[in-house]
């Protein structure tokens, strides 16, 4: 039996007496503890002989101390491994409670319950996430005691970074700038609207990031997730009590309103019906990702929504602002590898979230598919991204220098190989998720570099042909 908790999520996995004694037997000694006649705890290290099958422990009576009979006492095992210059690791401890009886010069201990933690079984970050309820209880009690709200804090800069998940803006910047650069290559470029496009698109993504936390909190998905990482599980500022649900909803609204104003301004400046269609579609995909009634992610359409939103819609949207509505195949084909690679960021990030997502009813691909299929899916999508790039060049739709993006294939291979061994280890998967983000970012930057080469050569050596067949 584990120690009772008030939280919905158990802080540590259940530990029965047999398991507790098994663990206690693995420690070189046990710390015998009882409460003395003055009401103070007393602890003494003893050499315990543990019999887990009989729920029984014996040890020599400590000299000069009277161990009380008929009251609950405890035996604790504790372990760390010192790491000089760093601190320590391999933390684990277990406590077994029971009653003692004197048997000559030995004491027998009959175990009744156990509790413990082993970071090899429950990683520290997961243990912390499982303990959020205790922290909330602490601050609630302190608020009552002081008669004023007391909340955890974070400096404004860190809080802003965490709340908006600002570093993930690369998912927007890459396709938007690529759309602008492709338009520039085709002779369309207007700096003020280009800048407005980047800012407006960034607001859309910030709105999406924050709204995603709001709706995932409302659905219970983020609360159910006890293995979030820096890449998955949301910003968790609501779960940590750093920002309220209402504040987050307000912030999402502000971002979307700002994006809407910039979108209307661009429409007024460029007068393109195509931009209106793409803008409305982008807004619907963004807000509909988690929000009712569309709730794409709950219907198994989350990955497609992200691919479309952060691929063709972002890239073509930025392109048509510059082209005043004219469309062409080049930006569309260029958007497809970006769409697949950004979809793969979400796809891999969904792997550690899959249990919490399933509990919340989110039908993501890792929730619905087997491990082998998910890993196979990653490989198929990554191969498709690079194949489209090569085919785009081969048929003369994309310029040859964009093949620079193929340099990222080893990174994609690294992700592919890392999924299998880390599939059930969220914290081992963190490094893989980090590499996966780089695959998208670096591939996008290399596509941009390829187009920079095209623009440069177009200026200094216009006779050089960089499109096959042209």
């Amino acid at each position, binding site marked *: 039996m584990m120690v009772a908790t008030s939280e919905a999520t158990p802080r540590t996995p259940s530990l029965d007496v047999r398991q507790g004694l098994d663990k206690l037997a693995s420690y070189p000694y046990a*710390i015998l503890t009882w409460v003395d006649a003055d009401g103070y705890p007393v602890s*003494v290290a003893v050499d315990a002989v543990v019999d887990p099958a009989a729920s029984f422990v014996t040890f020599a009576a400590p000299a000069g101390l009277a161990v009380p009979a008929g009251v609950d006492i405890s035996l604790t095992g504790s*372990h760390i491994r010192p790491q000089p210059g760093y601190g320590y690791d391999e*933390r684990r401890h277990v406590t077994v409670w029971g009653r003692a009886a004197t048997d000559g010069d030995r004491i027998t201990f009959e175990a009744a319950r156990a509790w413990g933690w082993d970071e090899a079984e429950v990683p520290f970050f997961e243990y*912390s996430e499982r303990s959020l309820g205790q922290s909330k209880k602490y601050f609630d009690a302190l608020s009552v005691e002081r008669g004023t709200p007391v909340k955890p804090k*974070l400096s404004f800069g860190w809080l802003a*970074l965490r709340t908006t998940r600002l570093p993930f803006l690369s998912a927007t910047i890459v396709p938007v700038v690529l759309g602008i650069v492709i338009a520039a290559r085709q002779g369309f470029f207007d700096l003020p609207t280009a800048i407005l496009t980047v800012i407006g698109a960034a607001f859309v993504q910030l709105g999406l990031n924050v709204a995603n936390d709001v709706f995932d909190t409302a659905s219970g998905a983020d609360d159910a997730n006890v293995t979030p990482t820096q890449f998955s599980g949301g910003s968790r500022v609501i779960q940590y009590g750093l920002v309220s649900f209402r504040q987050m909803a307000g912030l999402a609204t502000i971002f979307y309103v700002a994006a809407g104003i910039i979108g209307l301004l661009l429409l007024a400046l460029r007068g393109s019906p195509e931009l209106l269609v793409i803008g409305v579609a982008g807004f619907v995909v963004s807000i509909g990702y988690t929000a009712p009634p569309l709730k794409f992610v709950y219907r198994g359409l989350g990955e497609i929504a992200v691919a479309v939103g952060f691929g063709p819609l972002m890239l073509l949207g930025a392109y048509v602002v510059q082209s005043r509505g004219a469309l062409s195949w080049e930006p569309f084909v260029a958007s497809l590898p970006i769409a697949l690679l950004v979809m793969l960021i979400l796809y891999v990030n969904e792997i550690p979230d899959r249990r919490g997502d399933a509990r919340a009813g989110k039908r993501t691909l890792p929730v619905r598919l087997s491990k082998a299929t998910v890993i196979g899916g990653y490989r198929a999508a990554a191969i498709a991204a690079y194949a489209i790039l090569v085919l785009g060049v081969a048929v003369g739709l994309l310029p040859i220098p964009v093949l620079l993006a193929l340099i990222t294939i080893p990174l994609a291979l690294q992700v592919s190989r890392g999924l299998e061994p880390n599939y059930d280890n969220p914290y081992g998967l963190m490094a893989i998720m980090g590499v996966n983000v780089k695959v998208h970012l670096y591939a996008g930057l290399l596509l941009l570099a390829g187009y920079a080469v095209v623009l440069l050569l177009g200026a200094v050596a216009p006779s050089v042909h960089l499109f096959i067949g042209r």
Partner: protein
Amino acid sequence: MSTLPEPIEQLLDAALVGELTVVDSTGHPVTYPLIPLYDGEKIYLTSSTLFSRKLEHIKANPKVSLSITDPVAIGGRTDRATIQGDARVIEEDPHGGWERLLPIWEKKEPSIVYFLKARVALPLFFERALIEITPRRSLYWADGSAATAPVVADAGKAAA
């Protein structure tokens, strides 16, 4: 002002981990491994709000003990001690009040300053209360063996 026998002070200074025992509302002892921080007079421990149940127990019953038992965590020393005392929870500023103990903490766990710089990664871990223990009585086993009766001393008085 020192109130503990010198060998116990040495143990407190050396120990990377000690075992804090509090008494819960049902009278049961509950033991938590924590880093003991000693300023020459009082013993301090810190507790994240994430793992703050021990603070509830202390507020209800301040009688606690801290044992130093693990030779691995005290640089190979084989002596052991238990200090009984009265604890109080200091929580005026859970966000930063505990940082006054950072210099002593860093000596034992140098990595803590690096983790603190990245507190954005786990903000609630660094929302902490201080546990201040005023020693009342100590038990000391020079050979570390429970087969030998401990030397018992009231805090601030000569060994009995």
